[in-house]
């Protein structure tokens, strides 16, 4: 236990990176995921196909494989950025597929009449989605989004294997520092993940109450 307390700065530095990875990838996945959901419900068949192809191929690929393709595949086509950006890209691409499905289910939960009415008063597809459907869908999306982002928080630990110093790697560094306290160090890391996940769950339930129609 002393090893953890003596090296608290290592832990803090690591989990700060965990949080920043989570935040950046969450924003990216929300934007990309909403775009893909819009593609999947759009009236243009090729866009629908493209959206479906994305969700099915990315959602059904292990995150480690996505990381491999991004970190070692992109440099093959001369895309070389920092390992941190590669990690954000990989996490965003992966999480976006799940966000897209949550958003799509939210969209489907809005009565068809709403969209039909909007179109009949002359709104375009994107106006309908932006101004009428998505605001109503949002309340239904929040609970599944909470689960997706908690999964994202834990998924950032894969980045430890791809050149990122984050929580899990901080844990590994401490384990190497003191092989006599392995269980205590791992348990501490697990507690921090648990704490962060509970915090974000709490934030989401506040948000859920705020957006739920009275």
């Amino acid at each position, binding site marked *: 236990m002393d090893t953890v307390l003596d090296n608290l700065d290592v832990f803090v530095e690591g989990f700060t990176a965990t949080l920043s990875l989570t935040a950046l990838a969450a924003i990216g996945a929300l934007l990309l995921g909403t775009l893909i959901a819009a593609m999947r419900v759009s009236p243009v068949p090729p866009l629908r196909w493209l959206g479906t192809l994305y969700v099915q191929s990315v959602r059904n690929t292990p995150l480690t494989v996505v990381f491999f393709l991004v970190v*070692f595949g992109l440099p093959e086509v001369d895309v070389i950025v920092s*390992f941190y950006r590669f990690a954000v890209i990989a996490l965003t691409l992966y999480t976006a597929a799940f966000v897209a499905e949550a958003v799509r289910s939210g969209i489907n939960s809005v009565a068809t009449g709403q969209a039909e009415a909007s179109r009949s008063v002359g709104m375009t597809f994107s106006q309908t989605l932006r101004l009428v459907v998505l605001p109503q869908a949002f309340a239904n999306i929040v609970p599944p989004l909470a689960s997706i982002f908690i999964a994202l928080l834990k998924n950032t630990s894969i980045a430890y*294997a791809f*050149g990122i*110093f984050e929580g899990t*790697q901080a844990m*590994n560094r401490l*384990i190497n520092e003191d*092989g006599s306290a*392995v269980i205590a160090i791992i348990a501490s890391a697990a507690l921090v993940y648990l704490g962060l996940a509970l915090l974000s769950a709490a934030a989401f339930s506040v948000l859920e109450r705020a957006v739920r129609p009275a």
Partner: protein
Amino acid sequence: MRALRTSTVATATVLALTLAACGGGSGDDTAAPVQTDAASTFEEGTRMKELADAGKLTVGTKFDQPLFGLKGLDGQPEGFDVEIAKLIAGALGIAEDDITFVETVSANREPFLEQKKVDMVVATYTINDKRDMVVDFAGPYFEAGQDILVAKGNPKAVMGPDDLTGLKTCSVSGSTPAATIQMKYPQAELVLFDTYTKCRDALGNGQVDAVTTDNVILSGYVSQDPDKFELVGKPFTEEPYGIGIPEGQEEFCDFINETLAAAAENGDYAEAFESTAGEVIKDTPELPTPPRGCDK
């Protein structure tokens, strides 16, 4: 359907071949001599007697370390560490088929020994004081040193660790080499992966400037791809590899040291090296002497 059937046949064939290979693989030419009557030579109550009577040995080793402990597609770990384990098992009268190899990664070596999940750990296990507080070490059986791997032609002119300033330097998280860079050469920009093969690939892609770990591991990568990589060749640490055993087994520790000394004497040690790591590292080392001693 046709395609499916073909692939089923192919799978079955591969499986059969694999099984056949497993069946025939046990009698390879590097087999350490087994003292079949060993059990009767140990005193009652010693750890050696216990193991010899049981006729089984559980050994923790690396499964992903080329030249030392690498588990290939045939499922049998191979390497210098594995051969050392077989030498010791042989001296206990335990045939190599009765050795169970368990994967130990850097992080679980001490817990496995403390919980007696393994009888010993031979896994490029650097002896240091922190570790010595919770486990005991026999040996060392090999002396490695941390070195640096760079791209062919050494474009950044790295001559030693001091030249790593500002360079992206790759190693494995939780490893001794990574800790050394953090402590002694913090001016290097450390990038950590979970395996050295990823570091090698990142160096090949130009994503990092250097890879650092024990020279023996890096030599393996140079031999795989001499047109791409080169070794700086100036080890700057001493990494004595020891054999980890649970605490309080001094007799067993002495026994391992005696076995190693005898193997160095009769050439088994050199043979174990030459059939594994020696395929890449041309100079067969002497057994480091004297052993560090087993008293606490």
